[in-house]
């Protein structure tokens, strides 16, 4: 029997989707290690404790809550110290967090503070005796590595979307704790957070992504991509590296080997030829649609459904048809 600690990521006071996925993964790991408890830790602005109920629903037995006005932003030093302190107090088999902007940053801090082996961006977790065995896509998703971690605890960051959040109803006991380091005394100070486009889900969380490439011909034609995303209702908008390099879209929208790596239920590639660098960021999507005028474009080799044609003609037609289909659904 072994307990597992989860860092349940928030932004401001809102729990992030990857927090529920991390709890789901932790629950499975605790069960596989003989049925231990899952303890989650929320560190956020006052009000963040509200996320405890959701964490309980997904399998957390105990939720530790740290609320502090400074934790409205990502206070990496204080949060790392607090999670590490909590981890030292329990004898945990593993500390699990999301491989998100926050988790990528926190994971190695925790590994160093706890002198624990770490695997990042994992898509599967298994226990084999004293060893934790994980799968991790390396080489920008081109080679799947199976890693064996010896030692306890281990630190594991889970790839967003790889573990589907599952309910495992419990009523979590909530315990308030103090930050282990004063968030106001940090050496790294957040001066400003600039929010991106409002009203769209993040690329890492969206079930549907509409992405545009150079085939759109001009920055202003990206409004066709936006309109198609609106028609689907819950879609995020992404772009190729060529497009972000040209400044048509912000760098943060880039999907590909050096940008975001995504696996939505549906990926619609609009005017994207399918360079290897782009495919590395989206080829694990469940269903891929491609619209491109060049029938020999490599994107059609991975597209479940391809349409050869001018995006300026096909995309508005698709937008209208999707809007009608959703209305009648």
């Amino acid at each position, binding site marked *: 029997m072994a307990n597992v600690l989860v860092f349940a990521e928030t932004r401001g006071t809102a729990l992030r989707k990857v927090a529920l996925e991390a709890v789901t993964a932790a629950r499975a790991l605790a069960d596989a290690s003989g049925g231990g408890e899952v303890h989650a830790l929320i560190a956020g602005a006052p009000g963040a404790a509200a996320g405890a109920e959701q964490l309980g629903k997904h399998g957390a037995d105990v939720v530790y809550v740290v609320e502090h006005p400074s934790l409205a932003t990502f206070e990496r030093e204080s949060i790392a110290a607090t999670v590490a302190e909590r981890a030292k107090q329990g004898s945990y088999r593993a500390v699990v967090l999301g491989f998100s902007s926050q988790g990528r940053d926190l994971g*190695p801090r925790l590994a160093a503070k706890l002198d624990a082996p770490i695997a990042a961006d994992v898509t599967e977790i298994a226990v084999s005796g004293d060893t934790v065995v994980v799968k991790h896509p*390396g080489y920008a998703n081109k080679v799947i590595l199976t890693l064996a971690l010896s030692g306890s605890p281990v630190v594991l960051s889970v790839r967003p979307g790889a573990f589907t959040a599952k309910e495992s109803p419990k009523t979590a006991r909530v315990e308030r704790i103090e930050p282990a380091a004063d968030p106001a005394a940090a050496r790294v100070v957040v001066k*400003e957070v600039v*929010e991106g486009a409002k009203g*769209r889900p993040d690329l890492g969380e969206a079930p549907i992504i509409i992405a545009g490439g150079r085939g759109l011909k001009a920055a202003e034609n990206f409004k066709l991509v936006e309109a198609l995303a609106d028609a689907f209702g819950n879609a995020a908008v992404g772009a190729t590296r060529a497009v972000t390099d040209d400044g048509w879209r912000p*760098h943060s929208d880039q999907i590909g080997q050096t940008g975001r790596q995504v696996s939505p239920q549906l990926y619609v590639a609009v005017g994207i030829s399918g360079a290897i660098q782009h495919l590395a960021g989206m080829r694990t999507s469940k269903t891929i649609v491609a619209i491109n005028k060049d029938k020999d474009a490599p994107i059609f080799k991975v597209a479940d459904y391809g349409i050869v*044609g*001018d995006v300026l003609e096909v995309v508005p037609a698709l937008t209208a048809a*999707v809007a009608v289909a959703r209305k009648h659904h």
Partner: protein
Amino acid sequence: MGAPTVKIAVCIKRTPDSESRFKIASSGAAIDEAGLKFDIDDFAGYAVEVALQLNEKSGGGETVVVAVGPDLVQESLRKAMSMGADRAVQLKTDAAAPADGLAVAKALAAELKDGGYDLVLFGKHAFDTSAGVVGTATAELLGLPCVTAVSKLDIANGRGSATRDLEGASEKVEFSLPAVVTIDEGIARPRYPSLKGIMAAKKKPLESKPAQLGAVRVTVQKAELPPERPAGRIIGEGAAAVPELVRLLQTEAKVL
């Protein structure tokens, strides 16, 4: 007197060309390196460029490149010196650097701790391990402030400021020096070494010493290629194909 000069370490890694087609080695636990082209990892290359630009701006200073690995990494260290780095340190291992990021970080921290660096730069992650552990873990071991995956970096008067992407947002942070910063794409295009730079690099000091790796507790058991997607299918041409696409999205893919 100009701006105070800064001493910067850049930790680099040698990785295969990311556009390669990979095959699995006969061990089943690594890629087959035959025929692959290796170079300074993309993100580490951005970090080298950032260091050189910061030092050009400060009108002096020193840029030291550091790599953990067997003698093959000397080629990458020489290249960084041909771009303009002043000297290099190889922390020598018998085999390629292990998959255990913390073990590598321990070797780097042991080398860097008494180096008097104002700034230690890393790429945000290396292409091969795609994990992003080593830079941040090194910062923790050194007890230094750390900012990860920055797309903009400035230093002045003993302080740094940086911008980094959060999902759907970006944050601007300030921090005290010395510090460790990991570099994202989009910050700077690495320069090509000039002929003069290549000649000069041959005479620059490259020190080699054994890496003091930590215990290796993460190992690769297996490497495999991801399953191929089923062959793509073109369902039609132009707007006329839209009704069929919508039908398939509803009935087959069930996403609409």
